[in-house]
């Protein structure tokens, strides 16, 4: 069973090495550093039928474990429902939802672009609504349904917005893309006007420095038509 990364903090705080710990407590049992480097060194960009290899790895990660001890001083048990799965982690109250996703829950699909709610790269859904995860604390969301980019595709099928982004080439470097897609998919349920200008206004909270805006608007409009 893979522990949350708090196990490694435990090691630091208790002075025990990895080998002192039981195999259950070992860090990232399946993902040793060596295997990571091997995997990443051979990071072939498979354009074949298993393009979601990385996403699949995340999905396979066991969830639901909790470390009874407060391994980070001040950390408390926090339960979060993300993409339909329950996660438990020991988090300080000051950990933002964004950092909890990226650093504690191995869901780095959501990106940090500014950490101050000014760029939209960190957009996730809370109870179906788009929000900036960098401006909210994880501990405040224990009763919420959270959806991240990793949870948008259902059963291997891309969400219409994801498919539209590919079709209209709505990205270049791809870093703002998860935020754009989370924003656009939530927008489908908002009372936005029909025109491109309305879409631009509604998407104004997501910045793209590569300048893929025209294609993003086209992708969003297509998704709206097929929604």
């Amino acid at each position: 069973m893979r522990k949350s990364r708090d196990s490694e903090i435990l090691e630091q705080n208790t002075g025990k090495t990895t080998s002192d710990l039981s195999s259950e407590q070992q860090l990232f049992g399946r993902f040793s550093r060596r295997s990571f480097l091997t995997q990443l060194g051979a990071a072939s960009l498979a354009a074949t039928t298993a393009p979601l290899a990385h996403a699949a790895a995340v999905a396979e990660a066991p969830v639901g474990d909790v470390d009874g001890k407060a391994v980070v001083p001040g950390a408390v048990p926090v339960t979060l429902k993300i993409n339909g799965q329950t996660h438990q982690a020991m988090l300080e109250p000051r950990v933002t939802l964004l950092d909890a996703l990226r650093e504690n829950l191995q869901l780095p699909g959501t990106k940090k672009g500014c950490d101050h709610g000014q760029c939209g790269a960190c957009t996730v859904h809370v109870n179906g609504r788009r929000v900036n995860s960098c401006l909210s604390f994880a501990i405040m969301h224990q009763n919420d349904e959270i959806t991240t980019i990793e949870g948008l595709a259902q059963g291997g099928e891309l969400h219409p917005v994801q498919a539209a982004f590919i079709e209209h080439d709505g990205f270049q470097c791809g870093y703002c893309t998860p935020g754009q897609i989370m924003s656009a998919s939530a927008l489908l349920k908002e009372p936005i006007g029909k025109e491109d200008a309305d879409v631009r206004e509604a998407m104004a909270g997501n910045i793209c420095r590569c300048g893929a805006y025209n294609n993003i608007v086209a992708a969003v409009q297509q998704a709206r038509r097929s929604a």
Partner: protein
Amino acid sequence: MSSSVIGAAVSRIDGKLKVTGAARYAVDHPMDRLAYGVGVPSTIANGKITRIDTSVAQRMLGVITILHHGNADPLFRPANPFERDSHAGESRPPFDDENVYYYGQFVALVVANTFEQAQDAAAQVKVEYAESKPSVRISEAPAPAGPPMRHYSRGDADGSFKSAPVQLDVTYTTPAETHNPMEMHATIAVWNGDKVALYETTQGVVNHQHVMSEMIGIPLEDVHVISPFCGSGFGGKLFPWPHSMLAAMAARRTQRPVKVSVPRSMMFTTVGHRPFTQQRLRIGATQDGKLISLRHDVITPSSIVDDYAENCTEPTPLLYSCPNVTSQQQLVHLNIGTPTPMRGPGTTPGLFALESAMDELAIKLNLDPLDLRLRNYAETDESSNKAFSSKHLREAYQKGAERFGWSRRNPKVGSMRDGNLILGWGMGTCTWPAGRGTAEVRVRLNADGTARASSATQDIGTGTYTVFAQVVSEKTGIPVEKVDVVLGDSSLPPGPMSGGSTGNASVLPAIAQATQTAVDTLMEIAVRTDCSPFHNADAKTLTMTGGRVHAQDKPAESGVPFGDILKMRRLAGVDGRRRPVRMRAQGTFRVIPSARNSVRLPGTRALRA
């Protein structure tokens, strides 16, 4: 047989990874025992650090160590300009001394178990300074450093200006600009004994590897730079910046992987920018708009520690026909971070000034601005007295004029309206050198019918992954979906930086040649394998279409899938980088080696209007 892959609207092959959040950027990679480094930036622009008080910070929960100039491991300087492939953004290693050279310079790094602990402790590091008055504007700078740079001269621009019937003397300034890609600069450094792996976001894994090897002071082969995805850079990620060295230093000191992310506020101070420019244009012309004299004098600032000159005068000597031309650049040193290339460095602000001056000259002469350009059209490159390998600027002017309805333009300022909007309508000439760098590519054809292309170059959003797949597909007929592309790793065959709009031009010939070599080898295998249908045939009579090997004078269906040929020989695959001993001369698929900063092939300049 020409495939439609090149020029077809192929979806990016990395698209699915990007839209599902599966693409891994620098600090997305999970690590065992990860520690976090948060920087303390200087709050003065010029002076000395007199005291760093870490007494509170170092006792805070989770803090492992605090690095600064008083306790930093020694770093070295990059060997550039003595070596080719090692340019650092800032040649001064971080924590080199107690001096502060610009606002927002790293003066300390707190390393802690969590990001929150590191950030909290960083705010508690108390730094005291002996502040000196900073110079941050050209007007505040001491005298220019050294003689003019990039001095070019033909004829007598000075004298011919004085005697010209029409004279224009204008000075323009352009502001500093920051790259600020969506992905902030960041590094994860992981040591394994004496070797270090660096998860980076970079436009040049090879250069990054060289620089880190030199600045850390370890052998090149002990540095591994990994950057499969880069949240763009716009030039700012061509060269490594101080945080990268700090991550490596912190990881070695703590014996743990360390992640250092440059916060958005420091993206304005310590990772380069396009500098402010001040440009004086002096143009002398005849009454009917023939250029007699052209002088372009530029002053740009660099940091105290580096000489970076924004190359504004690059196009001036060749853009127009003019017998007397002088251009030169002057550098001043200010208390700012070292500038760096950004989106068409030098030429972009340079053309702004030159073209604005031409516009003002047109007004002075009462000439149509397009007409003025045409009257001074350069039939040859007068700076080198060579013909352009191709130049279609005149046609571009003409087509543009037609399409935009230029004839409907009323030149009187403020004369064109649309409701209560005042319309302005102008044109300008634009040019950029068509350069390319060295590139090595390996292409492997696999027995399972797939292909794999790899190179230590990068896709920064420019579509390089897809371009590689397209070229391999074009030459073999293997569908794009069956071509794996591996980039962004310094352990791969050395590839070019992703900069200067040189990427595709650099890799395309290499991909093509590597593919061809693999295909040629495959043919040799086909004719020399007993159970092959082509056994003892002449390899030169075979070809590959749609992934099938067949005789050239027969249709593709008559052949066999290339993977089968390999299986017949029990080969897992064949490499396009290496060739069997008895084959034609070996070659790595290097495209014309070129010096670092002038990657232009002589005589090839593409001009675009």
